[in-house]
C-alpha cells in the first residue's frame, strides 16, 4: 500500500497553515521533524502530506522567529534526533492563529454551504 498513495488526496498547504499545524502538533509535547510530519499525516487521515522540502524550511523559520526551540536528544530507537518544542511566544502565536483560523473556516464554510449552517 505504500506506492499507490493517492496523489488526489494530498492537499498543498498554505505556508501560514503549515506553520499553524506544526505549532499545533507540538502543543502536546516535543517532537522531531519526522514525528511532526507523521502526526500531521495521521491526524488528517492521510489527507495532509507534509513534504520534507516544506517541513524543514518551516521548522527553521519558526525557530528563527523563536516560536519553537530545538534540542538534540535520543529518540525512542536510541537514535539522535533534533526535537522541537513550543516556546511561550509560540504558544501565544498559536492561540492567535487558532482563533483566526476558526473565524476564517467558519466564514468559508458559511459561504460554501449557506444552507447547512445556522
Amino acid at each position, binding site marked *: 500500500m*505504500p*506506492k499507490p498513495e493517492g496523489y488526489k488526496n494530498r492537499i498543498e498547504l498554505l505556508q501560514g497553515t503549515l506553520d499553524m499545524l506544526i505549532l499545533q502538533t507540538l502543543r502536546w509535547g516535543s517532537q*522531531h*521533524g*519526522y*514525528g511532526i510530519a*507523521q502526526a500531521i499525516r495521521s491526524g488528517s487521515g492521510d489527507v495532509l502530506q507534509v*513534504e*520534507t*522540502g516544506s517541513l*524543514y*524550511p518551516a*521548522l*527553521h*523559520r519558526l525557530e*528563527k522567529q523563536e516560536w519553537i526551540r530545538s534540542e538534540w536528544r535520543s*529518540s525512542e*530507537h536510541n*537514535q*539522535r*534526533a*533534533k526535537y522541537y518544542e513550543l516556546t511561550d511566544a509560540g504558544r501565544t502565536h498559536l492561540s492567535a492563529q487558532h482563533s483566526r483560523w476558526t473565524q476564517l473556516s467558519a466564514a468559508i464554510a458559511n459561504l460554501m454551504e449557506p444552507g447547512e449552517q445556522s
Partner: protein
Amino acid sequence: MSLRNLFQRRKMDQELDEELQSHFHLAIRERIERGEDPREAERAVRREFGNYALVRETTRGQWGWNLWEEIWQDARYALRGMRANRGFTVVAVSSLALGIGANTAIFSLVYAVLLRPLPVSHPEQLVELLQRYPGEPRRNGSWTLRDVEYYRQHNHAFSAITGMAIDNLAELRIEEAGMRVGIAEYVLGNYFAELGLRPALGRLIGQQDEKGSAVAVISWDLWTARFHRDPAVLGKRVQVDKASLEIIGVAPRDFTGLRIEAKTDLWTPAGQDRGFHLIARLKHGNAITQARTGMAQLFRFTIEERAARSSDPQLRQLRVEVETCAAGFSTVRDRMGNPLTMLMAISGVLLVLACLNLASMMLARGAGRAREMALRLGLGASRGRLLRQSLTESLLLSGAGTLAGAIVAWSGIGLFTRIIASGRPAERIQLDIQPEATVLLFAAGAALLTGLFFGLAPAWAALRSLPACALRPSGKAADTRGNRFFGKSLVAAQVSLSIVLLGAGVLFITHLLHLRSADLGFRRDYILLVNLDPSGPGIRGEQLSQLYQRLLERMNEIPGVRMASLSAPTPLHGAGASGFGTVEGVPQRPEDRRWISISWVGPRYFETMGTPLLAGREFTLRDQSNPRIAIINSTLASQYFGGQDPLGRRIILDHVTGMREPAAYEIVGVAGDANYMEIREKERRGIFLPAFRAGRVTAGTFVLRTDINPHSVAASAQRVAAEVAPSIPVTNTTTLSDQIEATIVPERLMAMLSGFFALLGALLAGIGIYGLLAYTVARRTNEIGIRMALGASRNGIVRMVLQEALAITGAGVAIGIPAAFWGHKLAAVFLAELSTTHVAAILLAAVAILAVALLASCIPARRAAAVDPMVSLRHE
C-alpha cells in the same frame, strides 16, 4: 544574529545534515517495522523525501543572512572575480596605487610646506613683516630693535610684535657631549609669551630675560639627543659660540621654531642688535589688509630714519610686506608653493584619469557580464544587492589600491624629501614629513571617493540593464546604445585628460631642458669644484697664499685635469659679494648706481671656465705685486664705457661686501657675461678681482676642468690637498653641473613628476582604448563574421576597428587640446617664466596620444581580422 554566526555557519550546516539524515533513518526504520523489505523501504523513503540538496538549500535559505554575512559574501564574490581576472586586477590596483600614492605623497608635501599650522596659540593671527627690493625675493630678517620699538609704539593693527635673529651656524658646546653646529635663535623677551607656548620642562625666556641674560631654552630634540630627557638638565651650561648659557627650560615637544625648512636647537635672549625676523599678532578681528596699510605708513619713517645713516642708493625702493605666518615663515612657501600646488593639480588629474580608466574597464566587464546580472535579477536578486555587490568590488579594488598606494606614498615622500633637500646649502629645505592624521584622512578620503567614482558607472549600467533583453540567446543586447555611448565617452575623457597630462609633462620637461641648456656664459660640464676650509688651523696671509699657489700647481698636474684655477665664489653657489662701481672721472647720479657682483679669481680662470675673454688678458701670479687690477664683463663694459675701450681705465668700487674703504682698480680685461647667483639672471653685471694679491689670497674653491668624468678625479684632488695642506680639510667636492642642478630643485621635481604622470596617463589611456576595442570586437564577433561572409575584406575589418579607435581618440583630442591650453594658461599664472612653446607641447601630446591609440588598437584590430566567419556564425 551577529558576526559570530558567520563562523557558526559551518556547524549549522553539519547539524542540518544530521537532522535530515535522522529523518531519513527514522522513516526507513518505521517502514521496516511495518514489515517492508529494507531496500524497498529505503527506495520509498528516498522518493518521498524528494531532492535532498534542494531540501537542504531551501532550509538553509530560512536562516537568513545578516548584513555582515552579506558583505562577507559580496567581498568573497568580488575577490573571486578579482582572482579570475588577474590582468585586470593588477592593472587596476597598480594604477590606483600610483594615483592614490602620488596624491598622498604630494599632499603630505603640500601639507608640510603650505598648510601645517604652527603649534602655537591662534597661529592664524600671526603675520610676518618682510622687506622687498623690486624684482627680488622678499626677506624677513633685517629688522632692528629700533624698528621693533617704533612699530610697537605706533601701530594699531597688532596686539603684539616680537621677533628673533637666527644663527644657522651656531657652535653649540655642551659640557660632556662635545661641539656641534646647530641653529640658535636670539629672541625678544615676549617671544614665547606671545606665541602662547608652555615649557615642557623648567621655564621659557620671558621679559625678565630681555637684556641678554646668559640663559637658554633648548629644543625637545636636543634635550632628547644630548641629555636623554634627563630632568636634571636644568641648570647645566651650554656654550653658544663664545657665550656660556644656563639651561633654564625645554621647549614644547612639537615646537621647532617658526621656519618650515629647519629646526631650531636653542633659544637665548637677544642682547644686542642683530638682523631680526619680525612677527606680529593681529588684534582680534583685525584683517591683514589693515595691517598692510598701517605698516606701509610706518615703514616710510623707517626708510627716512635709515636714509639718514645709510648711503644705500636703492633704499627708497624698499617696500614692506605683511604676510600671514600661520604655517610658518613664507620663504619656502614663496619658492615651493606654486610648484607644489601645480603638482597637486597634476596628480589630481592623474587620479581622475585612473578612476575613469577603471570605470570604463569595469563598465566593459559589467556589460560582458550582463547575462549573469540579468539572470540573477531574474532569479530574484534585488537591484540594491547587485548595486552593492558592484560597489563592494570597486571599494575592494580601491582599498587594495590604497594599501599599495601607501607604500608608493611612503617611498615617494622619501624621494621627494631627498630631491627637495638637494638644494643649495643656503636654501636647503630639511622637511620633516610624518604620517599625520590629516594626510591619512586625505588618503582614505581619496580612496573612498575613487572607489565610489569608478564603481558607480558600472553599477548604474547594471541597474539599467533589462533582464529580458540580456537573456536573449545572443546575450549581448543588454549593451544598449546609451551604455555604449557612456563607455566611449569615458574613454574619450581619458584621452583628453592624458593630453592634459602629456601637455604638462612636455611643458615642464622642455622648461627644465631649456634651463639646463641655457647659456650661462661658461661651460658647465667637466668641471670639478674642490672646496677647502682654511679657517681652522690658523694659517693666514702669505703662508696661506703660498700653500694655495702650490696646491694650484699640483691640481694642474692631476691626470685627467686639463687645467685648474681658483674662484671665490664659484658660479651659482648661492653666496656672493657685491659693491657699487663708478668710473673714475665720470660722475654718476646716486639713483643710477647698481649693484655689481664681485668674484675673486685665479690665473687662467676664464680659460678654465670656458668663458670667452673679449679683450685684454687674464690674471697671472705675477700680478701679485700690482693687485689693484680688475676684469669686467661685457655688460659692465658697455654700460660704463659704451663703445670706448675700457682697458687701462679705472673703476672705483665701494660698499663692497667685507671691505670698508672704496678702492680704484685698473681694468686689464673684458670677459663675456656669465651668470653669478642664479640660473636666470636678468642683469649680469660682474667684475673680477685677482684672488692672489700681494701676500694674500682670497681663498676660494679650486675649479678643475677635466678631460674625463669630473667625479673620477675627485679622489686624486683630495689626495693632493691632503699631501700639500694636511691641516686644511677638504669640505666638499662637487661638479659644477651638480651645483647648478641644486639651484633648480622645484623645476626638477616638476619635470620628473609631470613627466612620470604623463607617461602613466598615456599608458592608462592606451589601456582604456584597448579595453574598449577588445570588448567591442568580442561583442561584434558575429557581426564581423557576417560582414566577412558577405565579402568584407580583412583590411576593411581592420579599418573598421581603427576607425572606431580614431573616432574616440579624435573626440578626446578635440576636448583635450583646449583643456591642455587652459591648463598651460593656468600654469603660466603660477610660474611666470615658463617658456612659450605651448602649441608645440600640446600638439606633441596630441600626436603622442594618437600613436598610443593606434598602438592600443593593433591587437583588437588583428583579432577582428582573424575572425573566422564559419566559427563565429556557428555560435548563433
